[in-house]
């Protein structure tokens, strides 16, 4: 059963990878990278059970905690064009 779940996750990952490659907008890419991250969390979890040593969930936990930092950075970057604070008059999108 873990094998079937694993296969499903791998298939889903390759589809997400396809969308990441195709685009077309950058938001599609962020979305599929984000979705790929969630699938990796699940994959590492299932992998532990498949090999009979489910003790390495710390890595999944780590991804679950900080995978969204990348997403936030991307969005801040595209909205304000900087990761810092200062935005010129042209970058103001309020």
């Amino acid at each position, binding site marked *: *059963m873990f094998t*079937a779940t694993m296969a499903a996750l791998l298939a889903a990952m390759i*589809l997400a990878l396809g969308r990441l490659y195709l685009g*077309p907008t950058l938001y599609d890419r962020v979305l599929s990278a984000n*979705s790929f991250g*969630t699938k990796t969390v699940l994959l590492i*979890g299932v992998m532990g059970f498949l090999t009979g040593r489910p003790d390495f969930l710390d890595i999944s936990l780590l991804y679950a905690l900080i995978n969204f930092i990348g997403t936030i950075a991307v*969005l801040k970057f595209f909205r304000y064009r900087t990761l810092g604070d200062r935005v010129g008059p042209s970058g103001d999108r309020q």
Partner: protein
Amino acid sequence: MSALITDAVSWALLAAGSLLVVVGALGLIRMPDFYTRMHAAGITDTLGADLILLGLMVQAGFSLVTVKLLLIAAFLFFTSPTSTHAIANAALTAGLKPRVAESPGAGKGSAAPEGGEP
């Protein structure tokens, strides 16, 4: 006997989760524009992920592993919708229009330049 029930329950949960993950990924590829794709990705991130984690929890029983799985589920529960919300918000503010029936083609993703003008 109870082992059989545990296995059956966890397998059912895993199967349902796997199905939803694959369906979500198919939607991510097949749906016509960004907002509908986001809808498909949401299936994977919420119900699919939680069902799989739940299935693993049933397998693990009462142990540290279950606590970690619960934490993973809790953090995914917070972070996934947040990032999805942030992406949608950014796309909408940047002027990416949803594709609607009244104006076919008007909301095509390619109509708005990447990171386009407000």
